[in-house]
């Protein structure tokens, strides 16, 4: 019973929230609006996948919002310079991957004391570079083929939602079913024991931060497509939204714990909340207050649940 609750607790919260918002606003539970929620949540869900892997190792990645901003500008600039969209997208992904890998290398090879430090540095560097290369102005009017990834649909399903589902599936297999994924959980659970069991801790950490940079770049491509522009301030604060989605989804800051499904639910929960509060004409300022309260409440509920589970486990 407690196992089920632990697994589906965040999902249950999401469903209750949806029901409540459906009761409060007759525009909330319409197909159009729900598809819209998926589209709006896609970017955060995407970044949160990389953030999840980082948090499972017991780390944190503050640079994802800025990497997203830089990649957003770069993909737009490249296409404006005449580079075909496919190649521009590949380049943006490579940039995200590389910046993330730099985070990991700084962390492991320079022995910086905590992931906070290298990613805080990268957060400033990437944002600064985004402003430098763009001159501070948005780069608008992107090719329509490119925009499909952010704004298009297949049938009635938004393209970014499909992309998110595919990436979730990939991350789910990666974290849950591969030996590398299991190493990642082990590193977060006990780094020393993992090392003494032969886990190549440094290279796994570099990979995890690189993946976090990569998902930020995917988020950048979706966002640029949806907004039809690459703007240098894209993704300001996105790192905090992604951390919120991951912890609402039941991951632990202590490391070793966290699931893709929980994180997806966490990202959707935040999207639903924003959308619903918009429909209810709650001001943006109050929305921020509500989201802050929800983050703390969600984690608190998780702590209570975990304590209860521990009590039963210890006796059994």
């Amino acid at each position, binding site marked *: 019973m407690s196992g089920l609750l632990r697994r589906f607790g965040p999902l249950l919260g999401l469903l209750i929230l949806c029901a409540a918002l459906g009761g409060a606003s007759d525009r909330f539970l319409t197909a159009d609006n729900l598809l819209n929620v998926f589209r709006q949540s896609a970017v955060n869900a995407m970044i949160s996948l990389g953030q999840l892997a980082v948090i499972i190792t017991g780390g944190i990645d503050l640079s994802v919002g800025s990497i997203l901003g830089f990649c957003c500008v770069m993909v737009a600039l490249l296409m404006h310079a005449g580079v075909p969209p496919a190649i521009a997208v590949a380049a943006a992904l490579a940039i995200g991957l590389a910046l993330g890998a730099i985070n990991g290398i700084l962390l492991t090879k320079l022995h910086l004391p905590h992931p906070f430090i290298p990613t805080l540095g990268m957060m400033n560097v990437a944002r600064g570079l985004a402003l430098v290369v763009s001159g501070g102005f948005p780069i608008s009017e992107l090719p329509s083929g490119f925009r499909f990834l952010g704004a298009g649909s297949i049938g009635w399903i938004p393209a970014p939602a499909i992309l998110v589902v595919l990436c979730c599936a990939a991350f789910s297999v990666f974290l849950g*079913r*591969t*030996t*590398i*994924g*299991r*190493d990642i*959980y*082990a590193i977060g*659970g*006990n780094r*020393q*024991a*993992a*090392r*003494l*069991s*032969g*886990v*190549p801790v440094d290279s796994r950490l570099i990979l995890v931060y690189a993946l976090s940079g990569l998902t930020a770049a995917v988020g950048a491509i979706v966002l640029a497509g949806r907004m039809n522009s690459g703007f240098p301030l894209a993704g300001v604060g996105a790192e905090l939204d992604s951390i919120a989605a991951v912890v609402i989804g039941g991951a632990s800051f202590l490391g*070793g*714990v966290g699931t893709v499904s929980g994180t997806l639910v966490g990202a959707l929960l935040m999207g639903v909340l924003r959308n619903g509060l918009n429909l209810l004409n709650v001001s943006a300022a109050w929305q921020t207050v509500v989201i802050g309260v929800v983050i703390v409440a969600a984690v608190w509920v998780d702590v209570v649940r975990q304590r209860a589970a521990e009590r*039963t*486990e*210890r*006796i*059994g």
Partner: protein
Amino acid sequence: MLEARNISKSFGGIRVLKSIAFDLQPGEVHALVGENGAGKSTLVNILSGALRPDSGELLWDGRPMQLRDPRHARALGISSVHQELALVPQLSVAENVFLGRHPVARGLVNFGEMHGRTRRVLAELGREIDPRRLVAELSLADRQIVEIARAVAFESRLIVMDEPTAPLSEHDAQALFRSIRLLRARGVALIYISHRLREIFEISDRVTVLRDGSHVFTRPTSEVTQEELVRAMIGTELKERLESRAASRAQSEEALRIEGPVRLTVHRGEIVGLAGLAGAGSTELLEGLFGAHGRASAEVLVDGRRVRLRHPADAIRSGIALVPDDRKAKGLVLGASVQHNIALAAGRKRFLVRRSLEERAARHWITALRIRAAGPGQPVVYLSGGNQQKVVLAKWLFAGARVFLLDEPTRGIDVGAKAEIYDRIRMLAGEGAAVLMASSELEELLALADRIVVMHRGSIAGELTREEATEEKIMHLATGGVD
């Protein structure tokens, strides 16, 4: 001064204490023994206010008392010195002793008084430690004394010590006993929990045995023999299994050879013991051999072939396994399942996890090593120390290791699990594996090892065959004496 009558306690319908009677006189060291799960911790937690009994009563100086919480117990004069030390390493000795109730003068901490009082308390314990030193700089033995000093500074009349010597060498344990005797002479009562039976005979006045939550007996220690005690604890005669000396099955082929500042060989089928005082360097030697500290400084040959050890992964590929001295910090991912922990070292060659194979393996080792767990999916944090240690061992058995480096393999585990681990170590050697095993329990080395290598300050002080080894000879070498 303390009396407990008919104490019972259940968790989730399971009775862990059944009508226990217990009493304590001033100036007595009362040993509490029993296997893990016998109810020692529960009883001690009730006596120190951390748990409330379901039924029964506690009398303090003849008057009934109800302990609300550990704070309340401390205020009455009951303190605990825990296995996991509860000190703040970044603070000084004096600040730790007076943590939470610093002497204050005019709103500011009175350091002069604090240092003076700390020095006096430490002197009462027969130790000289500078109260200004940071706890982080102290040895484990000294940290323990600081914990005890804290209890003494609280004017405690009853101090509970749970496995105080587990992390200590023989030498440091003796120093601890001197402090305990000084406390006893001042009328302080001590409840002493230990798995080391020899210590119980050395230090305690009376001994109470618990088994499966029931009180077996309380008797003056001088009237009990070790056999009686072991039989009372485990119900069967495990003593023979613990001390039996199987004939050496050492073969002539070298399995492990170290050529460096320390020179050592271990043959197939041989168990080589590493003895030495705490800090003599056996942990560093074993971890270094495993590549845990980066490139090994010594040349290492496994089965006659030179191996390069830069990372534990290299050692594992060469068939070397390390059971580290601290299983919680170095051996296990505590929050992860038994299965995940067992598969941690073996399953890395492939890209995809083979769940069914790993589950079968986990079930196999759970049965073979008699690991008491709810199943392969149970997080290891919920297992007892002995079962956790068996999981560490299972990890290496599953990985197919041929050279076993065991660092304090039975530290802090109960007699039953200890016997099982001894059996397994002998079985490993019987199957041709090489075992290099460090232990601060000399009986353990004498019972298991074919040869004993004694270390002193990072180098080898001497070597004794199983026939010539005695505790006296080992201690002589370990303390720097020459042959």
